[in-house]
């Protein structure tokens, strides 16, 4: 109970974390409540009359291919988030392993890992992802999509976490641990990892956000999972059918509102977590 009150009073001071969490919670609620009332099967094409503006029967209207757009949003939001989370977790996971190996053991491995990450980061990620997506297969599933995005998602975490490890390993308590005979892995998991946890969490959230951005980018270009109602695919159809010019506003307003909410939520959570990871930021608001 006391701990809960502590959390409450901290989030009261850490506004960004609070706002971000609330935004993301709102989305989760939308999906959970939506699932109770809406049949996600209606997110398939031809399950409703086409191009109806919002009405009692179809609160979000329907698109040109006859998808119930409320069902599309309810079914698609978790799919987009799933791509982001799979790719984000893989990215930070692989990135951490590489970063700890490079930053802690140094030497030749460090040179190689650092150079690869540095060079990889200057290359425009979306274009390489496009090349991969085009070469791999013509139609992708949501999970394959996540793997493609993950193939570059480790670059940024590797670089930034490595920098953190480099500063940490020079600290007195790490040296002390080494002198008292702890092995490399023990130091990494028992000494370095715990103090980096908030930082890793912030990196994870921003990686998820970057992965969602990349996946939506691929989808808008027409390289996404064609038969899945993800948010990016909805935007692809919006663009494909020129819904903007034709004045079918109900088709593009919901996906844009949801995507903006996702990005704003993740952005504020990252800032909030940064504040925890780097207490010096707390005074300079």
């Amino acid at each position, binding site marked *: 109970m006391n701990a809960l009150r502590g959390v409450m009073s901290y989030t009261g001071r850490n506004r960004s974390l609070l706002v971000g969490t609330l935004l993301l919670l709102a989305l989760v609620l939308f999906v959970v409540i939506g699932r109770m009332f809406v049949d996600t099967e209606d997110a398939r094409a031809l399950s409703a009359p086409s191009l109806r503006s919002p009405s009692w029967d179809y609160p979000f209207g329907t698109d040109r291919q006859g998808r119930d757009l409320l069902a599309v949003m309810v079914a698609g939001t978790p799919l987009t988030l799933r791509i982001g989370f799979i790719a984000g977790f893989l990215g930070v996971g692989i990135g951490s392993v590489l970063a700890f190996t490079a930053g802690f053991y140094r030497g030749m491995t460090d040179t190689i890992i650092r150079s690869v990450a540095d*060079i990889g980061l*200057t290359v425009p990620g*979306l*274009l390489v992802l496009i*090349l991969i997506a085009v*070469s791999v*297969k013509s139609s992708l599933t949501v999970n394959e999509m996540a793997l493609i995005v993950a193939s570059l998602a480790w670059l940024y975490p590797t670089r930034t976490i490595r920098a953190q490890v480099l500063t940490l390993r020079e600290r007195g308590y790490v040296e002390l641990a080494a002198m008292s005979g702890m092995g490399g892995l023990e130091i990494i998991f028992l000494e370095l990892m715990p103090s980096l946890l908030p930082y890793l969490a912030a990196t994870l959230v921003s990686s998820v956000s970057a992965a969602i951005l990349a996946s939506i980018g691929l989808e*808008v*270009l027409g390289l996404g999972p064609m038969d899945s109602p993800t948010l990016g695919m909805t935007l692809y159809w919006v663009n494909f059918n020129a819904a903007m010019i034709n004045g079918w506003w109900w088709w593009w307003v919901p996906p*844009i509102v949801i995507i903006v909410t996702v990005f704003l939520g993740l952005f504020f959570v990252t800032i909030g977590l940064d504040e925890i990871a780097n207490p010096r930021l707390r005074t300079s608001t």
Partner: protein
Amino acid sequence: MQAAYIARRFGVFLLIVWLAATLNFFLPKISGQDPVRTKLLQQAALGGAVQSGMEEMVKEYNTRFGLDRPLIAQYGSYLYDTAHLDFNYSIANYPRTVRELIVEALPWTVGLLATTTLLSFTIGTLLGALLAWPRSPRWLRTLMPPLWALHAIPFFLFGLILIYLFAFQVQWLPMFGGYSPGAVQGFTWKFVSDVAMHSILPALSIILVSVGGWALAMRGMMVTTMGEDYVVFAEAKGLRSTTVFLRYCVRNAILPQTTALALALGQILSGAVLVEVIFGFPGIGALLYQAIQENDQFLIQGIVFTVIVALGLATLVLDIVYPWLDPRISYRKVS
């Protein structure tokens, strides 16, 4: 020292070029597609032709395109072609070559990107510096939260909103294309102003979104710099406020911003590709979209290669200019 630094940076650039070409060559091979057979089957299905003799045709074409040679030989000639910027014909726009199409689209993208990046970097950096400066007007601070929030949104999404507001609702600006249909291209006042009108919305959607990021980073750097002893000393000497601001604070705080610029170019470009797609702006991004729609492998590969090389070149230039901005860097070997 200087020469060694430039040589090392140039080496990295060559490495990037080689990697891009290698990626282009091997990625399609991994998927195990047989381009000749696929294309022939497609055409046979379209024309309803007899399928006998198909195998001989596949063999004949494979020999002609050198696809029956060992992989390493194919790779060698691919590298040779790529080094000569020969990306083959565009499959969807035959007989036009990939190079022609890219050369046509490139100025649009370079123009859009150069203008927007320069503007957003300058405005954002200046805004961030002013935000950290205690003597700047108060109302500036109210600008920050909206710019901050915008910064979290992808360019093209904001572009869609701009299209709706300014091109659909009030119809002040054109919503699609790089120039009016039927316009005569050339360096006439009419055409240039037409292009400018068409570029406003795509440019705004990149600038307004990215300004917040630059401002945020610059503000952080300024706060740190303003705490430095030399700034306190400059103020104690009674130097003019503008001198302290520009020469002592901004001059030093801007250094990490330039490094960040080199790193951000790739991201800005990825975002701009999508902006071009939704605005139908006739640059590399729209060409790429078209190539993906028509499954034009050679065109896609050519574009990806060109963009990676162009961006590597831009980073190279920034990195070479950097020691001139920050004299410490050239004497320091990267640790």
